[in-house]
């Protein structure tokens, strides 16, 4: 918990510095490009996994795999977001954006896991 609070405080400081360096155009562009790159990277994996769901023995394994891919894609998206901002504004490369990547990814992953668990249990609860 202490680590998370420390991470939160440090991330806030870096975020304020980022706000000074970036404008709306940079943010929108980096968001769109990182979303596109993340989708292009994750799509083949997901599209390979979906047909495998017809093999009933693999279903639990595939659900776990989808969770892992989901979390990995959040980290990838966050990493690419600040990497692309860094390409546009080189000063950003000097900031320790890893802290924000970790913090934001942990928060989004937690939300995703909770939503995923609710959806999974509601579907499998209905099927059982």
């Amino acid at each position: 918990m202490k680590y998370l609070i420390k991470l939160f405080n440090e991330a806030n400081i870096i975020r304020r510095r980022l706000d000074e360096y970036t404008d709306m155009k940079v943010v929108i562009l980096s968001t769109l490009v990182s979303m596109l790159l993340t989708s292009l990277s994750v799509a083949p994996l997901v599209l390979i996994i979906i047909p495998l769901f017809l093999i009933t023995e693999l279903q639990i394994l595939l659900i776990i795999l989808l969770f892992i891919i989901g979390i990995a894609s959040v980290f990838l998206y966050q990493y690419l977001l600040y990497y692309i901002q860094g390409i546009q504004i080189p000063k950003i490369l000097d900031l320790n954006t890893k802290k924000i990547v970790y913090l934001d990814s942990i928060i989004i992953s937690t939300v995703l896991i909770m939503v995923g668990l609710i959806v999974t249990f509601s579907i499998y609860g209905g099927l059982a």
Partner: protein
Amino acid sequence: MKVSPSIRKIFHTFIFAYVFLMIALTVPTNFSVTAPNETRIANTMIQMNGYEQSSHFKTISVLTMSRITPFARMLYLMLEEFDISLMGVYESQLTMGEERLRSNIQKQASFEQSLITAYELAKLKNPTVSIDYEWVGMIVDYREAKHQNLNIGDIILDVNEQDFSDYETMGNYFLEQDSTVVIEVLRNQETLSITLDKSSLDVFRFYPKYNIVSSNPTFELPGQSVISGGPSAGMMYTLSIYFALVDDLTIDVDIVGTGTIRYNQEVGNIGGLRQKAYGAIKEGIKHFIIPYNQYGEIGDLSDRIHIYPVKNILEAIEVVYEISN
């Protein structure tokens, strides 16, 4: 940004491979796949209040996917238990919404028919059992795309003002008509009059629609909220209800079965029988009741599971007594 020629080459090669992979993973084909699924205890779908239903009566379903991708087709071709075939008429003409609606109509029809059949048979042995129901009409399960004014899910109450008293007569009369017919339809609680210009060759599919007014014992239908649908569990629902109501047999072995229950107590044909047999075999079940006409489809699996082909529900009941004794 300067990029070295070798990196550019790798990038071009990667892009080609990526696009090729995405085409294989996304472009739909005209094929559909049927795969084995798991069994389900029949009493999780229909429950009799105050009566204990055996948990040994099991239904089995299949998993299906239409318009599979080339990658999926390649994958499924490697699996012996999967069946890949060109999409049927129903699948190719109907939308996903209509398919889902059909699935629910079929499930509801099998609930109603299995309840009525089981109660009617059980009351011959147990006089406390009773069921009061009325036949409403026939519910449209499928119609060709050219008859768009008739919706899937419409309940046909009358045809050409003939005032029918049973499903079979009305169904046969309707199908035989080779000209314009005027039908009275119940849609969203409203009664409509629809004119159809039909030929006797047009394809229609119906299920009888009943209104169960009261019954003793009462029943619950938890299966209504279950995702899986279709009519193929009708026979097993009927057996599960019947043996709970007559209560003259201790069943201590799992019996899985598949087949629709028809208005005349016949057990009707179903799809994906081979995949259902594989599903039952995978779970180690030894007894499998199937529609009589379909024995040829899985006869070669009889060394792995005991197969009991039955023509009607009375034969299926006899099979259960035979297995249990």
